[in-house]
């Protein structure tokens, strides 16, 4: 290994301002070419600097199109790119892990007046962001339904669960789950009433991300469980939200989807409480 060099400069940059104007001008087309940036023999470099501006914008807009393909298709390519350019100026990736970009995109869509009529669009974007998080989540086995079957009936209500890292619940006042699913399947939106509220459950049992629509109350039930509530407490919150809540159906759905990785109480037993 090479010797550790004098690293005083990483704490105390000798010339901390030199890249600042370059950085500032990348996403602000109104700023002039940064001072001290030139072409060969000192000639002016406006078009040259614009290559970097264009690379940044086109690259980040392209990343958003990859992360939000349904939103992209729903509004059309030209519109999407024009809209994404505006978002890119307000929020850049906070790390070089580009696949995490766009956490603020759903909120941006909510305030972006030209898409105000597509009321479901921000929720479709939330589903797409969660879908990609599930896609990259840790490889964790899902809970074996037999684990729950092995619990004595009188102990069932006290069970807590460990949420699988790829599990996300998305609640929408619109038919965002159906719209997302139809769009990703290459279908049009005919037959979907966008004004019907839907809840979705995103999971990944092995490598394929799945999304399913949840019955009434099940979203509140799963969110309570994910928040650490017992099965009994979670069922209580679900009934509060929806009189139609069907506990047996909700448990069946969560087991089939692989929403949880294990019983929390089971873990404590293993450690020999």
């Amino acid at each position, binding site marked *: *290994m*090479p*010797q*550790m*060099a*004098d*690293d005083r*400069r*990483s*704490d105390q*940059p*000798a*010339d*901390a301002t*030199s*890249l*600042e104007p*370059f*950085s500032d001008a*990348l996403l602000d087309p109104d700023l002039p070419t940064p001072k*001290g*940036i*030139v*072409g*060969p*023999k*000192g*000639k*002016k*470099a*406006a*078009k*040259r*600097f614009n*290559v*970097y501006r264009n690379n*940044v914008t086109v*690259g*980040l807009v392209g*990343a958003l199109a990859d992360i939000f393909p349904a939103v992209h298709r729903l509004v059309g390519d030209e519109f999407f790119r024009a809209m994404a350019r505006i978002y890119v100026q307000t929020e*850049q*990736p*906070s*790390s*070089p*892990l*580009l*696949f995490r970009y766009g956490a603020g995109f759903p909120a941006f869509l909510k305030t972006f007046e030209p898409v105000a009529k597509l009321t479901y669009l921000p929720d479709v974007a939330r589903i797409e962001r969660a879908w990609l998080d599930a*896609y*990259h*989540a*840790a*490889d*964790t*086995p899902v809970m074996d339904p037999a684990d729950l079957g092995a619990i004595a009936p009188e102990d069932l209500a006290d069970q807590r669960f460990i949420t699988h*890292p790829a599990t996300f619940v998305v609640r929408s006042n619109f038919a965002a789950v159906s719209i997302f699913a139809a769009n990703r399947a290459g279908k049009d939106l005919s037959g979907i009433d966008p004004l019907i509220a839907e809840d979705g459950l995103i999971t*990944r049992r092995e*490598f*394929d991300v799945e999304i399913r629509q949840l019955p009434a109350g099940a979203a509140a039930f799963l969110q309570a469980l994910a928040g650490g509530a017992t099965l009994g407490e979670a069922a209580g919150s679900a009934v509060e939200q929806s009189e139609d809540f069907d506990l047996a159906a909700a448990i069946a759905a969560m087991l089939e989807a692989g929403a949880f*990785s294990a019983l929390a109480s089971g873990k404590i037993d293993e450690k020999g409480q």
Partner: protein
Amino acid sequence: MTDKASRAHSAPDAGFTDSTIPARAGAGLKPEHVDAILQDDYRIGFLEVHAENYMGDGGATHRTLTAIRQSFPLSVHGVGLSIGSENGIDNEHIARLKGVVDRYQPGLVSEHLAWSTHDTSYFNDLFPVPYDQPTLDRVVAHIDQVQNALGRKILLENPSTYVQFEKSTMGETDFIAEIARRSGCGLLLDINNVFVSATNQKYRPLTYLSEFPLEKVEEIHLAGHAHDVDDEGEPLLIDAHDRPVDDEVWKLYDIVIGQIGPVPTLIEWDNNVPDWPVLRHEAKLADEILERRAANYMLGSHHAANG
């Protein structure tokens, strides 16, 4: 759960093939090519990935790269360390890079002489640095930081540039040579970048190559570039990675390989990605040059040994 996963990740029994990268042509790995590569009778010499694409916790991307790594040597090419940054480099990101390197045991690890993050914003592009003493010291310190964390040498890639900094006090080749000398890093020579920068900055690519410390080159990159013009209507080449390697770049490559002998050579094609056979064709062109030059090389050493 991460216990079980991290054990699995660091396990040396993942069935990986030898990590040594041969002095042959390799290709930048694209997910859409994986099946074709694994099924192809032509065995590409190695594959290279952008480290950042494999920094997620799990999922299909890791499954795919594991399958590739079981059959091919791998080169890990970082695009996000921002080694030219003036506010230090991110230890968390170095740790993520180490995670990828530990897990996939690449034969080569490389990064860029560039910056891509400022404050908290990551711009997803590679920007030039001024060639002056403070920047040199900083880049050397950053490379030391990375090499110490990884416990291995990295290769540094020469940039493609469209602009210069008025404050630069030395030439690019002197700057790179001094970085390599002080940090002990190896070099990744991107010959398309040499051609693009030379055209854009008005010097001769052969002059650049004659000044470049070729003895430290452990990998070569080749890619296609696009044509534009600057404010005065003069040619401005864009490092687009969206088409075949230019004939002029092939000529320079042939000259370099003639001079230094065969080294691992990567074909990069990142935009408008073609079907695998098109990329494979580029790789075969590089293989031909490598084989021809290798034959000359062996002949040369044979003569030397006998006379």
